[in-house]
């Protein structure tokens, strides 16, 4: 018969293993329960998304308010459509909100910067599923250098 001590030790071992997996998922990967709160989707069309990826953060003034959940190419006009998955606690962005694709540092990864627009009586708030009209594409370093060289050349 299995003694109580062995049962206790096995229980302790299995509990420790489960705790380890939980610690790894919650503390190390910071995913799971905390990341799966209520969210809603907004859409934005960009001319160029540069190096933006799914799961890139969406920030307002440096604070993460959501993540990019999907990037597809619009089948009619072939422009990238980005799905912005925003935490439900940050709702009521105005229709005048603008989004731009920014880079963290000179060579860092790209994220979406959201600039909440003004609010007054005549402006409505963005509802889930709305498109954000005012978008600024990513800066592509090669294009910038190309423009710079071009303008240098035309000065002469």
């Amino acid at each position, binding site marked *: 018969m299995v003694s109580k001590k*062995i049962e206790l030790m096995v229980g302790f071992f299995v509990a420790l*293993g489960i705790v380890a997996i939980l610690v790894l998922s919650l503390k190390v990967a910071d995913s799971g329960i905390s990341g799966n709160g209520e969210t809603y989707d907004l859409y934005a069309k960009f001319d160029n998304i540069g190096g933006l990826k799914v799961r890139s953060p969406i920030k307002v003034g440096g604070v993460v308010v959501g993540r990019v959940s999907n990037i597809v190419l619009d089948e009619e006009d072939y422009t990238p459509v980005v799905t912005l998955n925003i935490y439900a606690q940050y709702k009521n962005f105005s229709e005048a909100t603008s989004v731009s694709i920014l880079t963290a540092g000179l060579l860092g990864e790209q994220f979406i910067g959201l600039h909440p627009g003004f609010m007054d009586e005549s402006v409505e708030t963005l509802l889930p599923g709305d498109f954000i009209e005012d978008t600024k594409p990513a800066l592509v370093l090669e294009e910038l250098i190309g423009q710079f060289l071009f303008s240098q050349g035309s000065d002469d």
Partner: protein
Amino acid sequence: MKQIHFLGQQTVNLISGLGRAVIMLTSALMHRPNVRKGLPLLLTQLYAVGVQSLIIILVSGTFIGMVLALQGYTILVGYGAEASLGPMVALSLLRELGPVVSALLFAGRAGSALTAEIGLMKATEQLSSLEMMAVDPLRRVIAPRFWAGFISLPLLAAIFSMVGILGAHLVGVDWLGVDGGTFWSVMQAQVDFQGDILNGVIKSLFFAFVVTWIAVYKGYSCDPTSEGISRATTATVVQSSLVVLGLDFILTALMFAG
């Protein structure tokens, strides 16, 4: 001619050995589980295989985490990138070192013990006596040991990674002075649940399957002599280590190269 004969003999032995191993495993596992009888057997084996491997896993996990932090710090600080110490340690532990090193330690600590135990049972004809009493030794002896190994190793690998990261925190943050907040936040930004943690767990499930399978098969098929047992125990450790390392390359290529 002699060499060709030898080659053919080896190939036939290898293939028939593989076949016997598959037959042993399927006939040990493919039957309706009997919870009332099986659970106490499984618990005893979980104690022998899992709980008794805890100490070696805890100690080596802590030290490997500490060494990783120390080595990583001296390299990263040259680039002013010591903030990346957290993700470096966490990713190397979760993706590679956790599953692989714990599988190697497990093969040495638990796999060899399983082989020796089953081999001695065979040499002293305990397995035959079980059959005489109409008890299937595959179900009574092999199956609980296999399941215990299969359950234990993924848990041990997760524990290994966890104490490794804590050991790295001890050295990196408490001793070398990397900022604690940066250590965790950069790690959390870099480590992905599905890509890193889940793939690590899947890896250790594969390793657990292979290592335990080799261990119980080598014991079950060994020559019933003292030399046979010693050869089977050595073969368990050597073959499981090689298979773990080879399988690790294949799994890594499938998971992370794409």
